[in-house]
């Protein structure tokens, strides 16, 4: 086929594919089940008692119930069952690693190695409700209390919605141009097509009483003490702003990029043909970010994409399903390789020298054996770190905000949740659970404050 773009040109180029190829490559990874498919899939659910899938879900969605509601022709009721526990159930249906959560726990695995398609059923129900514009929750009379939420990502949105359900006013302050956090900027394009993240923000905030202020960064535009002075409570959910560096030679060469920036730029690009991509790419890391970056690099027309991970397959944070998805898309995954030096030519990346590693006595050690992989682009996906200022004396723990079991920080009337605290698994669904539960904790405190004083008997 004749290519309109720059095909297999060396260097970092945009427009490597035909328009049709871009469209195919970035289409919905798992299109929504149609009604019949959903009924067939729902029929496989056994309606387990004290269901293992429900226990495995960080937000404890009543999965057997929502599937039964689908099978009885009540997708709206099903959606409400989902949203009762997880107002971002639509995005979670798309991005949850269900293969390590609900679907891994499904008892169907024991009998036939094939779980009920819980994620896709969840998407079926939530899509129907959201496309119908069906709102299940109404905001009660305002309590007069206002809560500041820092960060409009999954934790912040979940907290804001739950606070609004209790009648509190919420102001969300977000540093980016668009709300949604990682749902908007950090998810592979083919997992959330058709502006789903922003549509979901609209759906969640439609309950009312939630104001989102964009372009407001903590430490730059306001400080935590400003918030505690102005609001009745504060929920910190700004995620992780820092990206871990390699600390090796050549890291500042042109063509060494952060995978999260690449993923964000691709998501935001209206025309994927404008996104430049290398011909040969090495992605460093072993998590979901590495996988998402590698697959999408391939989908943009990169000729060769190699993930280098310094430990073994079994140590990768990316699930087996995600790894398979990568290899099915032509990504090569190499294990036990650590970056040693990035090689340049005329100021740009020319390759990477890697060193084989080994596990000795439970410790990862270099082996002295090295090799070179030719590359014109290196993507770093070796983790993100907490980076924030303006927090004053807020106590930290292992580099993130310290919280107790109710998500309370060391500062009175300040709660925190999502990736910026150290307790979660850095999953959207965990962030939602933390935001929701923090909101309940905040509400308990605020509600106690607004109750009329009890007369002494």
């Amino acid at each position: 086929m004749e290519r309109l773009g720059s095909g297999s040109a060396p260097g970092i180029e945009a427009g490597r594919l035909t328009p049709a190829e871009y469209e195919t490559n970035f289409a919905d990874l798992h299109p929504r089940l149609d009604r019949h498919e959903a009924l067939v899939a729902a029929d496989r659910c056994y309606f387990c008692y004290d269901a293992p899938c429900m226990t495995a879900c960080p937000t404890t969605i009543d999965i057997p119930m929502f599937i039964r509601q689908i099978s009885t022709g009540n997708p709206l009721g099903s959606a409400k069952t989902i949203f009762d526990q997880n107002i971002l159930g639509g995005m979670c249906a798309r991005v949850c690693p269900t293969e390590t959560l609900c679907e891994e726990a499904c008892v169907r695995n024991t009998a036939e190695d094939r779980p009920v398609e819980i994620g896709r059923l969840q998407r079926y129900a939530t899509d129907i409700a959201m496309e119908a514009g069906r709102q299940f929750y109404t905001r009660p009379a305002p309590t007069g209390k206002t809560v500041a939420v820092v960060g409009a990502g999954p934790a912040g949105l979940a907290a804001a919605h739950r606070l609004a359900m209790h009648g509190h006013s919420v102001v969300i302050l977000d540093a980016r141009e668009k709300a949604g956090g990682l749902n908007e900027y950090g998810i592979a394009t083919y997992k959330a097509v058709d502006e789903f993240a922003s549509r979901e923000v609209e759906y969640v905030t439609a309950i009312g009483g939630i104001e989102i202020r964009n372009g407001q960064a903590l430490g730059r535009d306001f400080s935590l003490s400003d918030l505690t002075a102005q609001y009745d409570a504060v929920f910190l959910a700004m995620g992780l702003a820092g990206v871990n560096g390699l600390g090796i030679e050549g890291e500042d060469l042109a063509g060494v990029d952060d995978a999260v920036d690449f993923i964000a730029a691709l998501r935001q690009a209206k025309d994927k043909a404008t996104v430049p991509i290398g011909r040969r790419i090495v992605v460093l890391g072993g998590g979901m970010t590495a996988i998402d970056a590698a697959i999408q690099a391939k989908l943009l027309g990169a000729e060769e994409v190699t993930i280098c991970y310094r430990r073994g397959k079994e140590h990768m944070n990316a699930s087996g399903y995600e790894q398979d998805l990568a290899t099915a898309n032509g990504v090569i995954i190499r294990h036990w390789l650590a970056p040693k030096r990035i090689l340049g030519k005329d100021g740009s990346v020319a390759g990477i020298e890697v060193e084989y590693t080994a596990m000795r006595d439970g410790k990862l050690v270099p082996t002295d054996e090295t090799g070179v992989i030719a590359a014109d682009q290196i993507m770093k996906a070796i983790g993100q770190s907490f980076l924030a200022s303006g927090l004053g004396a807020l106590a930290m723990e292992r580099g993130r905000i310290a919280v107790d079991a109710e998500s309370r920080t060391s500062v009175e009337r300040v709660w925190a949740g999502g990736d910026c605290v150290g307790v979660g698994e850095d999953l959207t669904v965990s962030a939602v659970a933390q935001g929701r539960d923090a909101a309940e904790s905040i509400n308990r405190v605020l509600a106690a404050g607004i109750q009329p004083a009890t007369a002494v008997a």
Partner: protein
Amino acid sequence: MADIRNNFVGIKSPNPFWLASAPPTDKAYNVERAFKAGWGGVVWKTLGEEGPPVVNVNGPRYGAIWGADRRLLGLNNIELITDRDLYTNLREMKQVKKNWPDRAIIASIMVPCTEEAWKAILPLVEETEVDGIELNFGCPHGMSERGMGAAVGQVPEYIEMVVRWCKQYTRMPVITKLTPNVTDIRKPARAAKAGGTDAVSLINTINSIVSVDLDNFAPNPTVGGKGSHGGYCGPAVKPIALNMVAEIARDPETYGLPISGIGGITTWRDAAEFLALGAGNVQVCTAAMTYGFKIVQEMITGLSDWMDAKGHQSLDDIIGRAVPNVTDWQYLNLNYIAKAHIDQDACIKCGRCHIACEDTSHQAITQFVDGVRHFEVMEEECVGCNLCVNVCPVENCITMEALPAGELDKRTGKVVDPVYANWTTHPNNPMARQAAE
């Protein structure tokens, strides 16, 4: 190879699978296709009296219920007897019988309940040289409003009278088809026997409203905003049919009366069960209407292979074999004690046995053992009811194990008695106490 050739009241067919009188047997085209597919016989769709034929509704005639994956479990219909001209049917029947001499063709008949009407039609049918007649006393809708079908089948005296006319005016074997829409199926069977019938066939369809259209609040199938009760058939009715067949097979007054079994037969196994309960052959309709005529090939090979595996030579080896084991509740052995046993290797830990037992039965299955999700039967609570077996999604994961004589029943604290003892002699039975006194 097992011999599955069938001889039912002298009517021979290469296998015991007949198509029941219904839409699949309405005309030569369908019946020829059925015979090509392998069906042993057909009961031609019911003929009415000479004259303008009946008319059917021009809207939907069927309603259904479905199981998982929209598998059809029950079908209901409001279709009437043949709406084709009597002589067209007779001409086609004669021709098809000529084309397929080794297959059975039975004429189903429904005419008004007068001696003249029956006397008039019988010679016309006899002239076609088909193998026998079936009296349609079952059809529960439409025709019954005109004093035919189930309206006759629900009055034993009418059954006896019409059967007697038929035996008087034709030499052909007479099969009397019974309606299940009665309280005691033995009464119409006894009446048919008293009238001299050669056999009974059952069940016809059951009065039913299959579902209600909740948008316009009318029963399905809805014809112009209204619905009528229809006749229910398909896999869902099989248990009802099996019981009625067994009731007639074990009734001393009708014992030995040939029975053609009908009702939800879908597989060879269903057919074998009817045969075991005393049916001399079986008739099928809904399964063919759902899957087409080819299903008979599964039935033929399935039945034959099973008979081979079990060493049964011919149908006579299996027909009626289960009848002696059908008894009244009062004769069941109360000293037989069974307990559920869960195969932990097969268990998938869905918890359905636990919640069924916990919520609705005897609280005899654990949910946790030592803090771990684990489903195990507590024998001291288990009454052996079998509910857990039936709700378990894994076949043979839960089994009922009989306690051997001499073993302690942990629930009652008593040792299992080897002696058969039933309710008639049980001390709690007031009648038994009276007898002892």
